[in-house]
């Protein structure tokens, strides 16, 4: 029995190869759940320990920039899902268009994130670099009118930068993968039978989206005493 060239030699047919690849991606995503899970776990323990400082930290973040970024990421996920759908129908022209849009939204997310980091620096929120217990708003006021930040807010900001930073690194990797897939699509490597790389890259992209879906409320939205 002859196999098409896109079926690797260890697999019987394309269906077996597709299942193996998809399962492998889910195994990888399970390890990623635990990678981010450890960060969430330590964040939870510190948050229960210093609730006031962490709440103050959440209040100091830019809720609307984070909200816009969530919408940008959800939109990119929609277009990724559309790319996978078009790939399953063998419509390579549409796949290329959807992949371009997905990548553009991913890059937009990173740009907005960079802008937010710059705003955090302006607000003097970066620990061990320019953290100040007095916010820039309060700097001109007399000490009696100031509302100083708790020192432990630095711990919150460490969590914020590590968690969003690792998420941004995952986004960067995802953008790289999408660009490679875009080139492969333009070279006509995929068909209705063989489009599994697009599908499992989609799994990864949606996973990074899910991580942000949890990061956003955990870091920005828990602001009630």
């Amino acid at each position: 029995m002859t196999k098409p060239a896109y079926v690797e030699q260890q697999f019987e047919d394309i269906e077996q190869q597709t299942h193996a690849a998809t399962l492998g991606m889910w195994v990888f995503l399970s390890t990623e759940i635990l990678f981010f899970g450890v960060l969430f776990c330590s964040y939870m323990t510190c948050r229960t320990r210093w609730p006031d400082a962490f709440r103050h930290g959440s209040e100091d973040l830019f809720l609307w920039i984070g909200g816009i970024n969530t919408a940008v990421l959800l939109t990119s996920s929609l277009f990724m899902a559309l790319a996978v759908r078009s790939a399953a129908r063998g419509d390579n022209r549409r796949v290329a268009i959807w992949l371009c849009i997905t990548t553009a939204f991913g890059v937009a997310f990173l740009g907005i994130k960079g802008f937010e980091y710059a705003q955090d620096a302006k607000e003097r929120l970066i620990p061990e670099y320019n953290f100040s217990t007095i916010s820039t708003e309060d700097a001109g006021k007399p000490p009696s009118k100031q509302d100083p930040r708790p020192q432990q807010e630095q711990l919150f900001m460490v969590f914020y930068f590590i968690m969003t930073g690792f998420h941004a690194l995952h986004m960067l990797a995802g953008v790289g993968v999408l660009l490679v897939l875009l080139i492969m699509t333009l070279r006509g490597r995929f068909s209705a039978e063989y489009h599994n790389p697009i599908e499992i890259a989609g799994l990864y992209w949606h996973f990074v989206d899910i991580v942000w879906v949890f990061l956003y409320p955990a870091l920005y939205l828990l602001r009630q005493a």
Partner: protein
Amino acid sequence: MAKKAHPIGLYLLVYLALLCLLGITIGASYLNIGRYPNNIIAMGIAIIKMLLIILIFMHLKYERWITWFFAAAGMVWLCIMISLMMTDYLSRNHPVNSSPKGEPVFISER
């Protein structure tokens, strides 16, 4: 081979639902209903969003049981890690908002 694709309307519907949930969760963060209800609403909505993305966008609905098993494994171990860790931390007699030794400040004044 089964085609793994939903009709395009379903993707758009899920996308709109995700955006609505995002709006609700931002709005709920302004409600002053106490810390615990607030946290539960924020995290509950995040879990609903996660399920929508996993089941529809990631096509888990179409996968075989073994894929479900592997997808659940990470979640199960995460739940074990969080619950065991929190039973420890929540049952310790440490004063809240202080350092382990009871000092009011954790990171020294610069």
